[in-house]
């Protein structure tokens, strides 16, 4: 009985694997490992326009498949990575770039972390300098007299 059940589970798992395969992402063979690497990094850095945060290499949406086909054909056509990205942005907008470009609109996005680190550094430097100045400041005549008195009192006791 247990054997039959096990066999049945195995069979169903196989069936499910088969159906999953049918809707899955096509496998592409490359002769050139550099091309393969470029294809991988391009399809990993382009965002599917209709999914919730998926790269086109990870999505079985029809539009992602069409985009992968274009990436592949353009690579085979000898186009540069930059050209391929531009091609996609011209059609689907900046939305498809996982790494937004540095431009007027994204200036804050890229600049803020560096800006905050810089501001923090300046703040620390200012505080340190202010403290150092405060401790090195000359004592006034009155303060010197008090200090003298305190030291002398310590000695006499």
């Amino acid at each position, binding site marked *: 009985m247990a054997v039959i059940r096990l066999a049945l589970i195995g069979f169903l798992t196989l069936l499910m694997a088969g159906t999953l395969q049918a809707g899955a992402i096509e496998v592409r063979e490359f002769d050139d490992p550099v091309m393969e690497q470029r294809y991988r990094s391009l399809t990993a850095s382009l965002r599917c*326009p*209709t999914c*919730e945060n998926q790269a086109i290499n990870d999505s079985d949406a*029809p*539009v992602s498949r*069409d985009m992968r086909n*274009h990436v592949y054909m353009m690579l085979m056509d000898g186009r540069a990575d930059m050209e391929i990205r531009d091609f996609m*942005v*011209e*059609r*689907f*907008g*900046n*939305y498809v770039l996982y790494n937004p470009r540095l431009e007027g609109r994204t200036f804050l996005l890229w600049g803020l972390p560096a800006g905050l680190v810089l501001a923090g550094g300046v703040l620390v430097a200012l505080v340190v300098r202010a403290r150092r100045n405060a401790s090195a400041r000359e004592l006034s005549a009155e303060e010197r007299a008090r200090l003298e008195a305190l030291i002398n009192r310590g000695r006499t006791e």
Partner: protein
Amino acid sequence: MTRRLILLLPLIGFLVLSLFLYQGLSLNPFHRESALMARDFPEFNLPTLEDPERRVDRSLLQTGELTLVNVWGEWCPECKREMPQLLDLADRGIRMVGVNWKDTREKGLGFLEDFGNPFETNIFDPDNELGFELGVFGAPETFLVDRDGIIRYHHTGYISASDVREHILPEVQKWQ
């Protein structure tokens, strides 16, 4: 006292940033401007749905008349729901051109028979050639093309009766 207040600055900065990012969470990522806004309608060369022998190209959108281009498919339920609104727009005298997208000729023609045909012409695009140039990522999508063939407005998804009143008609008026 003012020195103490300065200590609050990071907290205030944090709150402002949080508020800014929090309101971003409620934005619908599908409502984004088309990359083709204010650009020429892309070039294409495709047959019409009605007549396989008749091929059309960009000059179809450069007739000196404002046109609404609607991307649809028989397989798309929301396209069926928005047909009454499209028929209404056509009745108002707005020129409509359809793009039958990722569909078969038979099903596309059946759709027009069942749900009505507001379109002057239907471009037949089974392999997503024009659709890709337009950056279409799901039907229905609608583009407003002005008299010079420049894309002026883009609507993603279903057009409701209130969308017609609040968005489509004002845009048509604006670019007329």
